[in-house]
């Protein structure tokens, strides 16, 4: 019955020139005949993305519908996306080997968002996101080595093994935040600092479709607009908040409109150029002093919510496969470059090989670097402070904290 549904809605979708995912919403069914009485299937089909399609809210005009990609940019985006992809897949492997523990939320499928956004801003701008943060840690200047070593909890990790998957920081990148939605007001605070200091910088604050209903985000919309803060709100809509599809969580799934009085735009988050052009447009809006703007990126994650979620109880393998075959961000960029003679297959293969090696080396480091020293247990409680005593597990265990 799942197959039939997909077939039907796919046929219907071919007649529509609408953007993906919109169509008819999803119909939730149980399939007792399939012997999976508790399985829920979505009838959503996946139409091909129309490139450079942009939906606007309270905007007279949007980003340009065409974009120029130089060879250099293309190769850079390709390499970065491929690096994120392979890094996340390696993390998957290491997690299954129990070398990575706890929470691990993987970003494969969404690479065009992180890479495209970075293409539209500079490293002197600021960015904050939630827990699906490995890709951003990379685009914001972290290295694969220090990211992987953080995942494996080693002293060479980007947070010296103290933070883990959800708490990685670099210059002008404020994590990595574990509490859904909390990062959005934080991002507005960073934007307030930009305006206060008059440095023409802005802050990109990301959140997912799951977080989009958080009250504190609406509080942030309000204050950012009142005070005209240079903030770009970006909703990475990957269709599912953990196991809950957007239709089941949100009375309105038009996340780009949820800012109400804040102008918004919705673009294809699988197309790195769309993301870049939209980000540039949004950045111009902010820097011209107009205040906040909201972007919705329609994207998809191949993995489940985290490594403890197989990701197939609330969506079908067919859906995942369809996205992979029709809208993979890396394949899309690759095809574009090849068909426009911007690169050769061999060249791209060489990049793949180099990336593979980089990941292997990083994994090697991440699995052999020692864990943090026990002396580090209590350090980094306070900044710029004298060392002080910390109570251990018993009254006789006296530990020391240094800054």
């Amino acid at each position, binding site marked *: 019955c799942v197959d039939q549904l997909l077939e039907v809605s796919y046929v219907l979708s071919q007649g529509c020139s609408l953007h993906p995912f919109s169509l008819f919403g999803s119909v939730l069914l149980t399939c007792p005949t399939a012997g999976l009485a508790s399985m829920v299937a979505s009838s959503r089909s996946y139409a091909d993305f129309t490139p450079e399609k942009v939906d606007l809210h309270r905007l007279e005009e949007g980003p340009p519908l065409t974009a120029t990609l130089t060879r250099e940019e293309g190769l850079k985006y390709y390499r970065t996306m491929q690096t994120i992809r392979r890094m996340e897949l390696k993390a998957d492997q290491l997690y299954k080997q129990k070398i990575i523990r706890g929470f691990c939320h993987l970003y494969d499928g969404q690479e065009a968002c992180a890479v495209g956004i970075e293409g539209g801003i500079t490293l002197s701008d600021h960015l904050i996101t939630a827990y699906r943060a490995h890709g951003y840690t990379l685009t914001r200047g972290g290295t694969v080595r220090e990211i992987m070593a953080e995942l494996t909890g080693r002293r060479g990790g980007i947070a010296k093994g103290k933070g883990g998957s959800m708490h990685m920081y670099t210059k002008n990148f*404020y994590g990595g935040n574990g509490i859904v939605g*909390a990062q959005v007001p934080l991002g*507005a*605070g960073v934007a307030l600092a930009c305006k206060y200091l008059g440095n023409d910088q802005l*802050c990109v604050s990301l959140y997912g479709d799951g977080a989009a209903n958080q009250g504190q985000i609406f509080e942030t919309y309000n*204050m950012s607009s009142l005070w005209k803060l240079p903030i770009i709100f970006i909703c990475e809509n990957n269709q599912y908040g953990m196991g809950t599809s957007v239709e089941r969580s949100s009375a309105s799934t038009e996340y780009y409109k949820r800012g109400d009085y804040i102008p918004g735009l919705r673009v294809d988050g699988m197309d790195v150029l769309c993301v870049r052009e939209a980000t540039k447009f949004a950045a111009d809006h902010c820097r011209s002093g107009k205040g906040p703007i909201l972007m919705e990126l329609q994207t998809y994650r191949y993995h489940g919510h985290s490594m403890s979620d197989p990701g197939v109880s609330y969506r079908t393998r067919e859906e995942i496969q369809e996205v992979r075959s029709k809208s993979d961000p890396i394949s899309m960029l690759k095809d574009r470059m090849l068909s426009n003679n911007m690169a050769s297959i061999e060249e791209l293969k060489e990049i793949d090989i180099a990336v593979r090696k980089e990941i292997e080396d990083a994994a090697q480091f991440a699995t052999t670097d020692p864990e943090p020293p026990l002396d580090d247990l209590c350090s980094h409680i*306070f900044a710029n402070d004298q060392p002080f005593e910390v109570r251990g597990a018993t009254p006789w265990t006296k530990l020391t904290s240094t800054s």
Partner: protein
Amino acid sequence: LQVCAFLLRSGFTEMVVNVRDALNQAMDEELERDERVFLLGEEVAQYDGAYKVSRGLWKKYGDKRIIDTPITEMGFAGIAVGAAFAGLRPICEFMTWNFSMQAIDQVINSAAKTYYMSAGAQPVPIVFRGPNGSSAGVAAQHSQCFAAWYGHCPGLKVVSPWNSEDARGLLKAAIRDDNPVVFLENELMYGVPFDLSEDVLQKDFVVPIGKAKVERRGTHITLVSHSRCVGFCLDAASVLAKEGVECEVVNLRTIRPLDVDTIEASVMKTGHLVTVEGGWPQYGVGAEICARVMEGPAFNYLDAPAVRVTGVDIPMPYAKILEDHSVPQIKDIIFSVKKVLNM
């Protein structure tokens, strides 16, 4: 402040300043000293502060540095923390600490833990301040003491001033500290005047965070307290002195880190301990003090079990007679001292 300066120049070495003005002057001086310091909260600007603690600051510093927020604690506390991430030094006011519960995730998870999670990459130089604990007739939802709640969490410094010197010095210390500080004021203390010496009125006067002060020396029993209850302890001590009991009164000033050394030294001298707080007894400040004394060298000097005087373990009632009986009174302190001393 101009009056202060005039009087100082004219040879007056002391000033009478109430707690509200002490806080106001401290903020004014710190705003002037460091461009990155700013104040945000409900009614802090054009209303001059719900309790007038920020009177005159908006007029002097303007919209950029004194910011009125909408009634959205979670949002503006998060914004304040984000501003601290990016290098500013915010003072985030909660109109009372009861409303901080709406924003407590930002205080604990975004502010307190970040320096640790980032292994020292991201300091958070922020002060959260506002009135804490019971007031008068404001009933259950507006009367809770949060000293134990915030005092529980590593990554926070938690201070609770009693008098004007505490208020001035601790607020300056808090603003100059590169870490998140929870600053627990007391509404009923705002209007209480105290003498401030010339030293205290200096612009760089700070009270170190983490050091308690012995307000009154004594030999028979140690009373440890914070905030408004320190005054009650001193009043109880005066009454008890007439009966020949000399109380040593320790003003904690800081809840976290707790100055265990000063408490232990006092207990080792007097052999008796009573803690006094306005908050509820279970898992409270007094409970922590007693546990620490048990675990340390001072235990062997105790001639009687240590005892706590606390708020009554109920939501705060409204009717005056009920409210009066919900908080520790001077007679409760005297009664407990006599019990502990077996008088």
